[in-house]
């Protein structure tokens, strides 16, 4: 943990589901001597890959939680974050990207750039993470790394350049030609651990020279000395090329592409070399914190171990010994026995046990220096919290957290499950900010909310497996909203005189649609028509009215309220009276403001063989979807569309059965749109029926 910062790499492995990133991580850990045997992802041998530490992940062959692990390669300390590939878990991906300095974008040499890769790539762009690409699965039939390089250029807009050439593809994939050193690399031994360097096979020599020239030409854009040497046809050393490429990578202007097959143990070690040679060290990345004492002014953190400590908790896990908090230290040192402040809660925390993680095995350490990732025990915090030296009141920039779009009612099967369920829910909502939970006051049911059907399903399953909580689930419910479409004036008097002290308050003004947010309250009262002390009561009253709209009891959003007149009574006016007046005014004006129902619309991207294109479009058409376009690429076609979430339940089954299981789709929230009149009527009917059932 005391390596100089230039020899530290915090890297992520980001990719589409099933492109083999967990297998790749597994191989990396094997070659760095962190594990001593290789297991398959799907757990054929009952052990499963090390990075997939959760049971459920082992079973599904997918990575859900991003475990951080530490290893060493070529005298460099490397922290690897294994990121989930499914779009429903993007908060995990985004949270991981926040703490990374560089990433390896893994692509499948058969599937190429798929819709999920586009999402992951956009996230990398958002957090400005420099990356190198690895075209995996070159041993598969249909492998075509060159096509993937051109897709990286065309579909993702990367300035991609091959750093290697494959020696044989599909079943004949033997190794790679390194275009920097101009050597052929073969991977011998039972697990490819012995690298044999030989001359480039004669049939590839010409192609390799051609490609090397292209590579040097590209690299010379980032280094004048190299450009000069290239033009004067001087000898160019591998180091010159790598240094120039590194500059391009750090600027995110070029993406070097490596190839191989992690499963067949080919090309992994050169990729590790590249990660240490081309990706940035923590001091080369600008990290910004917000100074809460100076109105959230931005402060650049120093990445020096001498300065006061600033660290971010980016992931929580429930371990055997209590809560395990993964943290990245951005500045200063975090050592055992230190006292820091959690800037969100203002609570003091004392650092107890510190560990370095190797997936679910750990190693005790005494301190974590700036630029490093580690984990600590026994700290009560939420994911995304900042720990800082008591002298600083810094918070790391807040992450964008979308509102949930779907909810599900949970009913525990027995008392024991009830207790376990609340433990699990408490943990999950701390771990994942897009997962929320509350108790519905009317039905007394526990409701969970999240970003998609699969997102909630995974948590329900985890509840059963990890916490032994047996629950029955209700039908998923879409998070509909109400809003108004036109301005309506109000002038409402709340007056009550039925014994005791009376209540009096009058408010006048208008409500109108507000596109830029959920709610805005404007006070334009002049001359004390409503005494100042009652203004906040008016706002409270209006806010309280938003919880349930008068149309169908959905939450109301996108409303601006302005009050500009009113009246009070010296004795009978009170905070309560004005709150009641505001509620009355809202109900009165709301009906006249033409309220409508809005529903969440999802952006759905479907990849299908061309022969099923028509069928797939048919399924979208039946679901009130709008097809934005269809993109044909050889045998595959990508259909982009927008579909209401309410129509997407069970779509994966429909898609599978109508395309012989050959199509797949991803879905993410796009926006809210008005529900058509006919659907509103249906919703109303359904609600009435439910109300009747409830009454009976």
């Amino acid at each position, binding site marked *: 943990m005391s390596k100089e910062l230039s020899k530290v790499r915090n890297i992520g492995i980001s990719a589409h589901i099933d492109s083999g990133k967990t297998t790749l991580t597994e191989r990396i850990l094997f070659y760095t001597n962190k594990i001593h045997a290789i297991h398959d992802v799907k757990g054929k041998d009952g052990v499963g890959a090390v990075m997939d530490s959760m049971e459920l992940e082992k079973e599904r062959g997918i990575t859900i939680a991003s475990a951080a692990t530490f290893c060493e390669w070529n005298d460099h300390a490397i922290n690897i974050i294994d990121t989930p590939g499914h779009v429903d878990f993007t908060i995990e991906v985004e949270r991981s990207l926040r703490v990374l300095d560089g990433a390896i974008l893994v692509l499948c040499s058969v599937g190429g750039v798929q819709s999920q890769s586009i999402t992951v790539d956009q996230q990398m762009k958002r957090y400005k993470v420099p990356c190198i690409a690895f075209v995996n699965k070159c041993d598969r039939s249909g492998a075509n790394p060159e096509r993937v390089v051109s897709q990286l250029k*065309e579909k993702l807009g990367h300035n991609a350049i091959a750093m290697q050439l494959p020696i044989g593809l599909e079943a004949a994939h033997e190794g790679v030609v390194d275009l920097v050193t101009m050597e052929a690399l073969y991977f011998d031994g039972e697990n490819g651990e012995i690298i044999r360097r030989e001359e480039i096979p004669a049939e590839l020599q010409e192609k390799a020279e051609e490609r090397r020239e292209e590579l040097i030409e590209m690299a010379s854009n980032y280094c004048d000395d190299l450009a000069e040497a290239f033009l004067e046809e001087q000898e160019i050393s591998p180091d010159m090329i790598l240094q120039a490429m590194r500059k391009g990578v750090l600027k995110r202007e070029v993406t070097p592409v490596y190839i191989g097959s992690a499963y067949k143990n080919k090309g992994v070690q050169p990729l590790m070399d590249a990660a240490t040679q081309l990706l940035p060290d923590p001091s080369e990345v600008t990290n910004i914190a917000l100074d809460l004492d100076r109105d959230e002014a931005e402060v650049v953190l120093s990445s020096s171990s001498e300065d006061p400590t600033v660290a971010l908790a980016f992931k929580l896990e429930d371990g055997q010994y209590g809560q395990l908090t993964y943290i990245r230290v951005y500045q200063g040192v975090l050592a055992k026995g230190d006292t820091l402040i959690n800037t969100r809660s203002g609570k003091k925390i004392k650092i107890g046990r510190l560990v370095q993680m190797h997936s679910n095995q750990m190693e005790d350490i005494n301190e974590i220096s700036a630029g490093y990732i580690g984990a600590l025990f026994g700290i009560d915090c939420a994911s995304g919290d900042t720990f800082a030296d008591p002298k600083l009141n810094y918070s790391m920039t807040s992450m964008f957290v979308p509102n949930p779009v779907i909810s599900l009612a949970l009913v525990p099967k027995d008392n024991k499950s009830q207790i376990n369920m609340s433990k699990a829910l408490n943990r999950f909502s701390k771990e994942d900010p897009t997962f929320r939970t509350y108790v519905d006051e009317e039905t007394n049911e526990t409701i969970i909310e999240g970003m998609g059907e699969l997102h909630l399903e995974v948590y329900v399953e985890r509840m059963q497996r990890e916490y032994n909580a047996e629950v029955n689930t209700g039908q998923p419910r879409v998070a509909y909203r109400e809003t108004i479409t036109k301005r309506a004036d109000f002038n409402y008097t709340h007056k009550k005189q039925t014994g005791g002290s009376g209540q009096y308050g009058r408010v006048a003004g208008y409500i109108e649609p507000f596109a830029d947010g959920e709610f805005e309250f404007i006070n334009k009262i002049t001359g004390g028509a409503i005494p100042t002390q009652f203004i906040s009561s008016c706002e409270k009253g209006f806010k309280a009215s938003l919880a349930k709209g008068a149309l169908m009891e959905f939450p109301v959003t996108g409303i601006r309220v302005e009050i500009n007149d009113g009246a009070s009574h010296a004795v009978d006016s009170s905070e309560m009276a004005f709150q009641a007046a505001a509620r009355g005014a809202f109900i009165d004006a709301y009906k006249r403001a033409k309220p409508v129902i809005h529903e969440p619309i999802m952006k759905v991207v479907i990849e299908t063989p061309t022969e099923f294109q*028509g069928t797939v479009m048919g399924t979208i058409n039946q679901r009130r979807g709008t097809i934005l376009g*269809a993109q044909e690429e*050889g045998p595959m076609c990508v259909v982009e569309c927008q579909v209401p979430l309410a129509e997407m339940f069970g779509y994966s089954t429909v898609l599978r059965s109508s395309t012989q299981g050959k199509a797949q789709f991803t879905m993410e929230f796009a926006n809210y*749109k008005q529900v058509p009149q006919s659907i509103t009527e249906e919703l109303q009917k359904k609600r009435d029926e439910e109300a009747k059932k409830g009454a009976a």
Partner: protein
Amino acid sequence: MLKKDLMMRNPLRAVSDANGYILPEGGLGAVVARAGVGKTALLVQLSLNSLLKGDNALHISLGDPVRKVSLWYREVFNNIGTHYKIDKIDDLWNELLPQRFIMTFNIDGFSVPRLDERLTELADQDIFHPQMILIDGLPFNEQLKRTDLHALKDLSEKFNSHIWFTVRSHRHEEPDAEGLPIQISEYADLLDVAIKLEPEDNEIRLNVLKGSGSISTQDLSLDPATMLIKE
């Protein structure tokens, strides 16, 4: 109301017939220009003109991904919104969206029978019936046969539609004896309208090379800042 208002102020109205069309049913039109002068921008405006009229437009791009084509539409539409000071541009955009369909092919993967197959599939399932087809990026070179254009003309008649193409010209090439760019000279008899975009001073002129009626007499240009048509 908003749509009607935009239609009334649309400069393309002056060059359209009473029903708002520039090309006859089954007709073919070409927008010729050098790279980067504004072919796609003009094509998108022709398409938006048709969408505002309530017609469906199929935009076929050979090369660009759907996302990029969508971006073109959004960009041009936002510029129109700013230019004509429209308030609820998002609502109008959402209204138009279902009328537009983008299809993209690799240049090698595109053929008229394939397009016919796709369109028939869409029409049979009642998913989309285009009244206007725009083909961006079809190479007008020695590989393009007259029979291909004949086939496209038949296709356009079959779907009661009309087709606009973009044609890329080159700076160094001289026009043919008729004054037409060499890319289209061989197919001139098949085209009903041909417009050439040419940068001139601070604007881009729309020179009508071929056409009949009002289109040939109108004086139109593109504003290089917004790429919108000016009168």
